[in-house]
């Protein structure tokens, strides 16, 4: 790059978003919608909201993220509702907390639709350019510079560079220095970030091959259909509008022969040959990883999913790989139905630079650089949904920063998004982070069905949710409360009519008087069934009935979690003063002191989640902070 800046363009805007993937889109839309003049930069306008890996949105716990994002006023849920081609609620046989929506997307339609939304958003400009440098003065971000030398002065920057920083793709011995799908990598920004003191590391992920539909024999596979009644992702989408014809996916399996080929060629895998240095995710292992690590498994599932309605490309889920092309073809062709397959795009692994996210606050702003935010895969996460959720929060908080308002920080008891971000910024993650339901300790409260009840108010408060939408939520809340109250206070006597009703539904007869709520707790009786003995009740919307049933049926468990949340919140509210010097707290164990210095938690609660900090350390910290505040004349809480 030349140092001569004469005759170069200079632009003045409010907020710059670097990258237009799932994080970048949400961030840019949020900023623009909140009234800020926003520019979003992408290396290729054609790759806005690209889905370079799996062709679906949602899935266990990821579906929760999308619902939450939607409740807060994000775009992903609305966009997938417009462009899905199959939809399924997962885990319906399990508890309501783990029901999770997943939709197959028409990839190009998804991209096109999001691009359309972006292009038509007021206050938002899309700019195709690579960003090479950030301008930071006195720890405050002032702007950035494109590869062609234009300077954009702004008040906040959101980095959403995904997997593009110094990306290289590996397919056996063949290595190309590109981003996903052959798009050009961003090669200068890494160094520029290091220069301003940002610590980066290297992660790895991978994707399986895409095949020509015509070369696949689906008769040898098990068809996988979508749900009969489709539930939309967005709380604003009319459920009737999404009932449509769906495509079919297919299931097949690897076998011993597949595994033999893989084992025989492991030396040609860049991971096992030691060429890949990045840390790969354990939850989405390449097929060679699966074969090595789960050697006793005779077969692995392979899901064949369409990439869209107007393409013959099929995604081969479960068989990502970085083996060389010839081995890939041999290995895929051992799978029933793929004997004559033709590969359109090879599977590959991708390595990229990303952030050590303990440099971030929970608002996703950098601790050391004011006005600089980051989101998405750059923060060390994985997945479209994780990226989008962070993008939305970073966008909102960049806006709050400009408005001089408090950032929106959701805690672990409020949202999966809170869990995601808290885990990212307080835990020492050694691999790309994927959302999982087991990571949420209060998951009975964080259901996908109540995301609106949990989060609409925050979305409304920041200004992304309209009064109309918010009022709908309030109305729903009121209807739920009223109906729960009514059922609890409606007595049911042991009348002849009741006993007969119970007998009919194979439910034990009443010995003493009961209530409608108590009857609803019986697994064999549904809300619908109860209409027989509750004939003059009002007809309520389905989503209200759902909430009523969950509230009554799981009351005991929900109460237990609520009391845990109370204790949790107490520790979250114990704030640690910014200027604390852990070296002064001599009673802390050395390991705890080091970890606390490294992570700089904002609250005692956050400190307690850092690995290496014991309950005794937490007690010591409480005492120290108390003494500190008292000596400074501050009153705690």
């Amino acid at each position, binding site marked *: 790059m030349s140092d001569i800046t004469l005759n170069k363009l200079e632009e003045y805007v409010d907020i710059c978003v670097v990258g237009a993937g799932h994080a970048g889109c949400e961030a840019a839309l949020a900023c623009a919608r909140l009234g800020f003049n926003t520019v979003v930069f992408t290396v290729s306008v054609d790759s806005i909201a690209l889905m370079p890996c*799996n062709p679906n949105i949602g899935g*266990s*716990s990821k579906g929760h993220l999308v619902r939450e994002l939607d409740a807060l006023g994000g775009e992903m849920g609305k966009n997938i509702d417009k462009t899905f081609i199959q939809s399924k609620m*997962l*885990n319906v*046989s*399990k*508890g309501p*907390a*783990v029901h999770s929506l997943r939709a197959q997307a028409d990839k190009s339609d998804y991209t096109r639709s999001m691009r359309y939304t972006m292009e038509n958003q007021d206050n938002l400009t899309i700019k195709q350019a690579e960003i090479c440098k950030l301008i930071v003065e006195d720890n405050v971000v002032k702007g950035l510079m494109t590869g062609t030398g234009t300077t954009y002065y702004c008040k906040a920057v959101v980095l959403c560079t995904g997997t593009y920083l110094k990306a290289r793709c590996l397919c056996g011995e063949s290595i190309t220095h590109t981003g996903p799908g052959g798009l050009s990598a961003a090669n200068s920004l890494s160094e520029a970030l290091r220069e301003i003191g940002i610590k980066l590391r290297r992660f790895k992920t991978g994707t399986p091959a895409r095949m020509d539909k015509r070369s696949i024999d689906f008769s040898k596979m098990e068809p996988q259909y979508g749900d009969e009644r489709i539930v939309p992702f967005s709380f604003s989408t009319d459920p009737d509008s999404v009932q449509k014809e769906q495509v079919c996916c297919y*299931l097949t399996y690897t076998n011993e022969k597949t595994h033999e080929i893989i084992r025989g060629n492991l030396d040609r895998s860049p991971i096992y040959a030691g060429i890949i240095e990045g840390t790969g995710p*354990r*939850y*989405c*292992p390449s097929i060679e990883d*699966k074969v090595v*690590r*789960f050697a006793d*498994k005779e077969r*692995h*599932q392979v*899901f064949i999913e369409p990439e869209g309605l107007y393409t013959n490309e099929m995604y081969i*889920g*479960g068989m*990502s790989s970085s083996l060389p092309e010839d081995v890939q073809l041999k290995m895929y062709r051992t799978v029933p139905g793929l004997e004559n397959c033709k590969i359109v795009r090879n599977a590959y692994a991708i390595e990229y630079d990303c952030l050590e996210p303990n440099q971030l606050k929970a608002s996703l702003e950098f601790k050391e650089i004011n006005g600089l935010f980051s989101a998405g895969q750059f923060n060390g996460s994985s997945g479209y949904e994780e990226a989008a959720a962070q993008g939305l929060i970073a966008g909102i908080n960049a806006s709050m920063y400009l408005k001089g308002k408090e950032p929106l920080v959701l805690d672990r008891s409020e949202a999966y998004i809170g869990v995601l971000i808290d885990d990212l910024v307080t*835990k020492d993650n050694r691999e790309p982070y994927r959302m*999982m*339901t*087991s*990571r949420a300790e209060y*998951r*009975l409260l964080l259901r996908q069905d109540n995301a609106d009840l949990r989060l609409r108010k925050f979305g409304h408060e920041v200004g992304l949710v309209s009064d109309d939408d918010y009022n709908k939520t309030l109305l729903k809340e009121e209807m739920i409360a009223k109906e729960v109250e009514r059922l609890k206070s409606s007595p049911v006597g042991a009348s002849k009519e009741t006993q007969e009703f119970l007998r009919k539904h194979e439910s034990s007869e009443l010995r003493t008087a009961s209530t409608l709520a108590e009857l609803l707790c019986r*697994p064999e009786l549904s809300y619908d069934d109860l209409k027989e003995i509750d004939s003059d009740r009002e007809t309520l919307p389905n989503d209200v009935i759902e909430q009523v049933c969950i509230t009554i049926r799981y009351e005991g*468990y929900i109460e237990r979690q609520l009391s845990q949340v109370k*204790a949790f919140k*107490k*520790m979250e509210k114990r704030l640690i003063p910014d200027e604390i010097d852990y070296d002064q*707290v*001599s*009673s*802390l*164990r050395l390991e705890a002191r080091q970890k606390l210095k490294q992570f700089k938690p904002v609250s005692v609660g956050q400190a307690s989640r850092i*690995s290496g900090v*014991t*309950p*005794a*350390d937490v*007690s*010591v910290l*409480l*005492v*120290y902070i*108390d*003494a500190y505040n*008292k*000596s400074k004349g501050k009153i705690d809480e």
Partner: protein
Amino acid sequence: MINDTIAAIATALNDSGIGIIRISGDDSIKIADKIFVNKEKEHVLLSFLSHTIHYGFIVDNDEIIDEVMISIMKAPNSFTKENVVEINCHGGVLICKKVLEIVLKNGARLSEPGEFTKRAFLNGRIDLSEAEAVMDLISSKSNSSLKNSLKILSGKLYNKIKSIRESLLYEIAFIESALDDPEHFSLEGYGDNLADKINGINSQLDSLIESFSRGKFVKEGISTVIVGKPNVGKSSLLNLLTRQEKAIVTDIAGTTRDVIETSVVFHDILLNLVDTAGIRETDDVVENIGVSRAKKFAMDADLILFMLDSSKELSDDDKEIISLIQDKQVIVLLNKSDLGSVLSKETILPYFGNQIEVIPFSALSGDGEEILGNLINNMFFSGNISADDELMITKERQANELSFAKNSLSLVIDSINNCLPEDFFSIDLLNAYQALGRIIGEEVDDDVVDEIFSKFCMGK
């Protein structure tokens, strides 16, 4: 959390006979009221004024446990600035412990190391200048608590808890894998399967809890079996033990004719010597029945005294006995040590996986008898019934966690029986897992996620 109610034994536990249980927190008076009655058997504590002391009884479901003096200090005029109740027990160490148990059962929580002082500080009772000392106290107390915890756990116990944790973790991870990746893992019929496993674990926990309840050993005695080949000196040992006796309590005819139980007090410890008649017989009648005796009683005994003739090499019979008593609490007595020995601690150790107490002994001269007394004391009363109160409290804490784990697992069984969906199982499984982790001083962190990835092949 601050404001919940905590309790602990506040005095050193020793033979003085008086011990103080201190309770602090919002509910301390309410809790004490549930378990305290006056002479007229009335619950009257709530009506008492602050800073008064009263005579009465601690009861556990109507059963009188101890005669006590109880004092009440209402917030904020107490050490912690919270409601504080102190119970002065008179019945000695075990009663003191029992009272604490009852307090905990009625809603208090066992205090963390240094927690009373911490509260006193946080509530402004202790001067700022003492903050440093408070922090040091907390960290040193928790350090010693953890050390004690590990000290108390024998290798076997530690490994047992570890292995229970491992199996719980596996089940949690399996459920979670199936929730995260329903298309790869099915939970069909899993509930019944899990119920079986939990029942197995619960009975293991039961026996662990039992091993923690030393009260039983003091009150009811330690059932002890002497095993060994004929002529190694079992009857001499028996004579030694009974000569030592302060009182022979009873001679009970057991369920079978030849089981005779003799209770002796040996070094202040009540030993129930099982099959003493048998021992007398076999030493007279030279007959190779040592093995069958061991087999029969080793199963039920709390303690096995295994006698070996140290002047002779281990015989096949000895080795067979060893194999039978592997999992029991065993003390090996190398008898006839005055005759010059071929056997030594080093030769015995490998047969017991290097974890066994071996002492040189002479049943005739009584050499080693002192050591034996101390050893039994160590094994069953973690050192000394009366001396080390910190150890005692630690052990109490461990027993508490074990019961908590067991209760959590019972809740899982309830959930299974009530046909609740599988994701409800893992909530209580995790609680049990965490409780057991606290016993062996292990943090949870990302265990579940790590286990999911290492044991189950997740898709995509």
